[in-house]
């Protein structure tokens, strides 16, 4: 799984709208996903391809329908790699500062 592809996919507001739609109701066909959106069918298809390429959306055939599912794993891996790490450092830096200030007080 490529972090660059995931970050690029998430950088676009239209694609985040599509992800949020799948978060509310998973397993939607293209025709459902494009309903009430300010996007052409071609635009939705293009964005879905980028999301699929990043592994954030997985398309599955269900009978004659192609349904799109949210795959939460890349976001979790990205969180573990890029958010957890820095949050810990921030907290430990604050604790260091506290020790330092209290020690010199």
């Amino acid at each position, binding site marked *: *799984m490529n972090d660059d592809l995931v970050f690029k996919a998430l950088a676009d507001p239209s694609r985040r709208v599509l992800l949020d739609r799948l*978060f*509310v*109701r*998973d*397993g939607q066909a293209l025709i459902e996903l494009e309903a009430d959106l300010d996007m052409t069918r071609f635009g939705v298809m293009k964005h879905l391809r980028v999301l699929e390429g990043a*592994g954030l959306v*997985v398309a*599955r055939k269900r009978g004659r329908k192609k349904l799109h*599912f*949210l*795959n*939460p*794993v*890349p976001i*979790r*891996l990205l969180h*573990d790699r890029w958010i957890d790490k820095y949050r810990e450092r921030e907290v430990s830096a604050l604790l260091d500062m506290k020790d330092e200030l209290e020690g010199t007080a």
Partner: protein
Amino acid sequence: MTVEAALATQVYQLYIKATPERVWEAITTPDLHAKFFHGAHVQSTYEVGTPIRSVSPDGMQVWADNVILQCDPPRLLVHSWRSLYDPELAAEPESRVSWEIEPMEGGYCKLTVIHDRLDASPKTAKGVSGGWMFILCGLKTLVETGEPLGPAPR
């Protein structure tokens, strides 16, 4: 639309730097399985129609007693799913779990886990939705590094 309906089919997909055989081995070997699946020991002959059981680390409790629905090593494993460790979950209808392993370029394989037929099992659906993520990240770490993932998240 309820949250429960949103979780009736859950799809998890990840890339693991290993051969399909190696991933299959981790899923089906009791000692390896225990390292990423809450310590559960898996017991099965992997023949269609036979049981696949999940037993607590001390061997005293049966956590799940399911049936193999499809088996094509090292590419496909499908089994029923019903949790027995909690009476509320055990009271819900059984659902289905599919493990699909596909070889990819560069020594990777793609693992797709689909947990479906959860429409009438909202408590199970809610319960497994965070659990699968932790289990599959643990499986990836185990297969790629030989070491289990750290303790469960808070």
